[in-house]
């Protein structure tokens, strides 16, 4: 009897120790992720879109039991749009023990944070910084291997549109007509031409115009002589509206393509001139059931003011971060250690293909400069109304 009592007591003590241990483990068992961006000030509309979009996904993960049974704890810092504050904020987030960061939001601040994050190999996923310099330093030829993004870089649309023209429209020949002296338009034009050549299409005309030009007839006549299957116009909507109108007046009937600079073009060219043209975009509201559900939920929780492209790409950024966290948990490394961060980065790099993102249901992969290969949304013009065509 005494023996039995002793055994029971011992068992109870063991149990209570275990309970203690369990309690302590729960405290250590959270994974801290930082969210950094402008949540007040002029840029708050972008910063809050990113913050709320990311929060929405992490909350869902936590409700479903967390990553490998561990809850994700978000540490939020508002940089007020200031680059010094962004760096201070990043340091304070690192001190609080984050293992990954969603952010920075603006290109300038993001670049400042990258300079701090690269030496300590802190995994970063930005949802909104589009400049190439965020992941690649041209001068030192360094790729910032710890930095990823879920928004595409501008020029990427050019190569996507070339693929679209080749695979979906069956184009064999193409022409490009772009604004010279502008990084955006030249970048898109170059990427388009490179991809066309890679696909074995022939680029039959490459014409340019200067800022402020209104007469494009001479160049368009040359393009007509070359008779391409498609013409890519990677410019802004006012210029492209004028180009489309003049091209149709001259009798150029082929399919015209554009980048996201076309958003709003329907006000600058007639419905019949634009009929059947395509342009690339990052986001089309309500285009897929998943996106629609996200938008409804976002509106209910945070209101309509912050619902924009970046809310969706931030949701995707959170998904990409979680893909990295899962891989790191599997590796068995201690949360917060250098090995853990390395495993997160490796996990993002190799595991993002299965991420069914809102803006890229076919997943994310990253090229040698850590720029994402993901879906773009193809918009077509029907009766003068931009209409969702497909994710490509």
């Amino acid at each position, binding site marked *: 009897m005494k023996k039995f009592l002793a055994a029971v007591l011992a068992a109870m003590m063991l149990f209570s120790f275990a309970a203690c241990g369990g309690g302590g483990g729960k405290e250590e068992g959270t994974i801290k992720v930082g969210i950094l961006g402008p949540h007040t000030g002029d840029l708050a509309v972008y910063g809050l879109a990113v913050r709320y979009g990311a929060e929405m996904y992490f909350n869902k993960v936590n409700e479903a039991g967390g990553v490998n049974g561990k809850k994700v704890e978000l540490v939020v810092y508002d940089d007020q749009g200031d680059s010094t504050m962004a760096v201070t904020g990043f340091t304070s987030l690192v001190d609080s023990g984050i293992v990954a960061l969603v952010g920075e939001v603006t290109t300038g601040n993001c670049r400042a944070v990258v300079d701090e994050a690269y030496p300590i190999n802190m995994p970063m996923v930005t949802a909104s910084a589009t400049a190439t310099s965020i992941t690649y330093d041209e001068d030192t030829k360094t790729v910032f291997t710890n930095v990823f993004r879920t928004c595409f870089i501008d020029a990427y649309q050019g190569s996507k549109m070339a693929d679209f023209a080749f695979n979906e429209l069956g184009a064999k020949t193409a022409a490009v007509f772009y604004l010279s002296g502008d990084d955006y338009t030249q970048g898109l034009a170059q990427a388009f031409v490179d991809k066309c050549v890679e696909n074995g299409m022939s680029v039959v005309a490459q014409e*340019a115009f200067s800022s402020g030009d209104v007469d494009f007839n001479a160049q368009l006549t040359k393009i007509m002589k070359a008779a391409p299957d498609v013409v890519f116009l990677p410019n802004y909507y006012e210029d492209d509206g004028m180009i489309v109108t003049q091209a149709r007046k001259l009798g150029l009937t082929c399919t015209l393509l554009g980048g996201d600079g076309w958003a709003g073009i329907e*006000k*600058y060219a007639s419905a019949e001139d634009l009929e059947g043209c395509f342009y690339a975009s990052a986001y089309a509201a309500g285009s897929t059931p998943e996106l629609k559900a996200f938008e409804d939920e976002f509106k209910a929780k945070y209101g309509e003011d912050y619902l924009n492209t970046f809310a969706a790409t931030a949701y995707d950024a959170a998904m990409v971060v979680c893909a990295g966290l899962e891989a790191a948990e599997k590796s068995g490394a201690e949360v917060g250690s250098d090995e853990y961060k390395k495993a997160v980065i490796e996990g993002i790099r190799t595991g993002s293909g299965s991420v069914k993102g809102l803006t890229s249901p076919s997943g994310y992969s990253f090229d040698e400069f850590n720029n994402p290969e993901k879906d773009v949304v193809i918009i077509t013009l029907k009766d003068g109304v931009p209409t969702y065509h497909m994710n490509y």
Partner: protein
Amino acid sequence: MSTFSLIIKQIINGLQLGSIFALVAVGYSMVYGIIRLLNFAHCDIIMVGAYIAWFFMANFANMPLIAVAASILGCTLLGVTIEKVAYKPLRSSPRISLLITAIGISYLLENTAQLMLGAAAKKVPGFFTVETIRIGQVTVSTASLVTIAVLAISMVLLTLLVQKTKLGRAMRAVSEDAETAQLMGTNINGTISFTFAVGSALAGIGSVLYCCAYPQVSPTMGSMLGLKAFVAAVLGGIGSIPGAMIGGFMIGLTEVFVSAIGLSTWKDAVVFLILIIILLVKPSGILGKTVSEKV
């Protein structure tokens, strides 16, 4: 498309562009001829005319003739008002004061338009129901044919006005020697106002043709157009109406030719290079009179 039709098309492109330059350049030249003023506000009168055309086309799209009439009338009134309010009080002042006033008026019009209508461009609905016409193998836009035809008619009428009517004789007399003309009984103020009215009416026609060809209006649309038309006027010989026309066509064809050989981003540079060469080689222009200064 054959090379022949390519060349024909490019020539039509050049003539269309040239016609618009010519109409603006004639306005510059007439005013310069009569009061020796480079009326820099001229190109902004075109901008106002284009906004009037836009307003009427956007609201009464089925009546393009109303838009044409309103914009010619609007430009004429604006031109005469500017002359009465801004230039007339300065007629005896040094010419530099007039020039600066003209630049001031130009900025005033541009910024007023920007304040009232915003800086973004506005789309002008199409004037023609049939956009393109096919002649043999060549498809040309209705706008370019109408532009060239309207320019030709305007120039014939303007030449008749200047050479065959009493008002035209008064204009020529004032431009030759204002004081003597006044002594001979010419109404100088009336003649100058009339010249502004005719020049501005041409600007009105130009603005409508501009809207047909390049259907967007913006507050700063006049500045580059004005500069190029100025080059055209200098090239043809400023003060000479046929000279302005020739200059306009030459600049239009040059721009298209430069673009056609693949140097489209250089075309502005080429146009201004022509200005520099003309000023160095023959400052009086192709048809300008060489005036010898009395010492």
